[in-house]
């Protein structure tokens, strides 16, 4: 793997996630070529709330990820509550009930680190609003393999901590507003 052909997108978000994602996801077209994996911190007993919420507001297909399913473009995969979501080398999803990471399951780091391994430089990673430091290590891992790191502007984010920690761990990340991000995802898909 040498040149960065866009292959996938990973997004991590916590406090304020739904609002932020509602600014980004509805713009993605039905035939968007890439898979989009999203970890949002939700309490463990909230069963499958995110996918139905976004499904009705998005053109792109939205679903809760299932264990061992084969990844396809044009699909948004949400991590189920109480499970980590990982991407395997053969581009299938695996779920796990491993210990909490950064006090959280699903954890953004777990998704980002596994996806960085699987996709290398073809990965674009986005850290959105949140009040903890999950995702910082994952974003750094993604940048290390040549992926494109993007962070929501802490100045305008609903909660600045998570973007702030991500920037500290990955100073080369591009800082964007949610609006810029939406068009940047579209462009990345069209590249």
């Amino acid at each position, binding site marked *: *793997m040498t040149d960065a052909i866009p292959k996938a997108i990973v997004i991590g978000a916590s406090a304020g996630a739904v609002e932020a994602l509602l600014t980004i996801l509805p713009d993605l077209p039905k035939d968007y070529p890439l898979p989009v994996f999203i970890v949002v911190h939700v309490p463990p007993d909230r069963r499958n709330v995110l996918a139905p919420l976004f499904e009705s507001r998005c053109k792109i297909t939205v679903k809760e990820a*299932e*264990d*061992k*399913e084969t990844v396809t473009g044009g699909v948004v995969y949400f991590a*189920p509550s109480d*499970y*980590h979501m*990982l*991407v*395997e*080398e053969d581009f299938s999803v*695996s*779920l*796990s*009930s*491993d*210990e909490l990471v950064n006090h959280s399951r699903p954890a953004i780091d*777990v998704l980002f*680190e*596994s996806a960085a*391994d*699987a996709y290398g430089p073809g990965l674009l990673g986005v850290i959105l609003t949140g009040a903890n430091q999950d995702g910082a290590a994952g974003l750094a891992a993604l940048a290390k393999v040549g992926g494109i790191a993007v962070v929501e502007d802490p100045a305008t984010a609903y909660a600045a901590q998570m973007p702030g920690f991500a920037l500290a761990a990955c100073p080369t990340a591009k800082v964007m507003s949610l609006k810029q991000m939406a068009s940047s995802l579209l462009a990345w898909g069209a590249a």
Partner: protein
Amino acid sequence: MRDNIEDIEVELLLAALYQRYHYDFRHYAKASIKRRLIQACNQLHFSSISALQDALLHEPTTLPRLLNYLTVQVSEMFRDPTYFRAIRERVIPHLRTYPSLKIWIAGCSTGEELYSFAILFREEGLEDRTLFYATDINPTALQDAEAGIFALDRIQKFTENHQKSGGRTSLSDYYTANYGRAVFDKSLRSRVVFSDHSLVTDAVFGEMHLISCRNVMIYFDRPLQDRAIGLFHESLSRKGFLGLGSKESLRFSVHANDFSEFDREEKIYQRIAA
């Protein structure tokens, strides 16, 4: 040629582990195994996975420590209370019709799931005719399961889960609190056989009416899941039940047609009588 050295190291270590000790993790989902091996290296202070492999082959105390990383000991009593409610309300009425019962808790970890079943069967008046098999590949976990002692700060969650599962008694009837620990009544395991058994390398050992195997196969790749499901199929009596974890299913399995969906939501399947 592979450019990721860690991936090469992971494969070599798993091969060594299999050849030397016959623990077979070669077909577990890779991403999670790799994460755990890196974690083991960091916490056990090895500079690389290769260094860990060296210790594994030459230093006997490494194996049990490594197993605690490679196997995931995350559990809860009455985990997913709706699953246990479905067992209680929908499966138990079928089980009642048998004069004697064999129940297999496969991948029982430190025993939380087993004690949940033992309590549920006692509440439903079926305990006396039941023999439980509780199996796992992690010897330390099995020892803990056999001891039946849990940290007291976990009991509140267990109690809530038990109530939500339709519990007819109080969980506190089954343990005594002692120095920050809840010691479960040993009579709960008087009808339990604890045993080392691997779903990857071991065979059928009896005919079961119900097998509960939750959050174990999720760590396997698909062919390995199929092996385990095949083993369960062979182990089940006619119309026996198979309960899986909330994110596991038979949908993608080559054995899907050998089972009917008894409770789709709770991932409870029933063997189709051949």
